């Protein structure tokens, strides 16, 4: 498989995951929120991005996909700038 095909396939899976996050994800609190609630560490429970932050209610699929593309762009740009002369045979340092 060509690297470009792998990247496009990975991007498709990633965007589908982002778009479907709210529909397929559990709405229960995550581990930190659950433990915090049980032990009384914080008052307002922290909300996860896939949960119910108010600004994500409207157009949330679009927001999640756009944010995912933003991370892709930031990461790609950063790593493209940082890329060196490493080759396959380079060790793990």
């Amino acid at each position, binding site marked *: 498989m060509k690297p470009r095909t792998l990247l496009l396939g990975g991007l498709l899976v990633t965007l589908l995951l982002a778009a479907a996050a709210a529909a397929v994800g559990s709405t229960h609190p995550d581990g930190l929120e659950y433990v915090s609630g049980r*032990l009384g*560490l914080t008052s307002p429970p922290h909300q*996860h991005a896939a949960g119910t932050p108010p600004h994500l209610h409207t157009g949330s699929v679009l927001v*999640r996909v756009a944010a995912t593309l933003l*991370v892709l762009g930031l990461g790609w740009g950063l790593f493209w700038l*940082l890329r060196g002369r490493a080759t396959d045979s380079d060790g793990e*340092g």
Partner: protein
Amino acid sequence: MHVPDGFLDAPTSVATGLVAAGALALAIRGARRELDDRTAPMAGLVSAFVFAGQMVNFPVGVGTSGHLVGAGLAAVLVGPWTAMLSVSVVLIVQALLLADGGLTALGTNITLLAVVAVGVAWWTFRVARAVLPRRVSSVPASAAVGALLSVPAAAGALSLLFAVGGTAPVSIGALLTAMVSWHLLIGLGEALITAAVVGSVIAVRPDLVYGARPVLAARRLVLRGPGQEPGAVA
């Protein structure tokens, strides 16, 4: 496991911010040795996948859920230094755009998820890879071990930070026990996802998996002609 604002006191948040800044400076130097023209796009995609994966909570036990941290996944796919940067990019965007994790806790979250979790995942992966048979198929299993332990390690580190700078009176023993035990369960989900993704990439392009490079380099080239039994080694 995104620490919100006010969870830790100001001095602890500042201290973890300094730790995170120092670690990211080191990671920028280290990532230059890991990245090349072929792996840089892959690293960008890994960031996006971790970001999307962190938005999907999977059920854990009764009334609780967990989500992918992605530290082990990123470390094995693109290398530990690049993984630190990758997870940090995710955490920064989450904090700035989605209010997922506090802004004043950004240094804490980077320290826990990009430094501690990636570090534990990578070194545990290396130990598991050294112990398991030297085959490409051992890489996803080793990655799963690293991912499994990275989550409770970060949870344990957060409990220790809370012991130093927590903003609520609570038994540290109780906090440590609850955090590590719940996140060990979440780590099982993390391990399954990590093994599945690393295994999928290895199945099609093992050369693009950073953690598989030593195994591929050591693999003997077997030359086999038509009708010949394998055995000739170059």
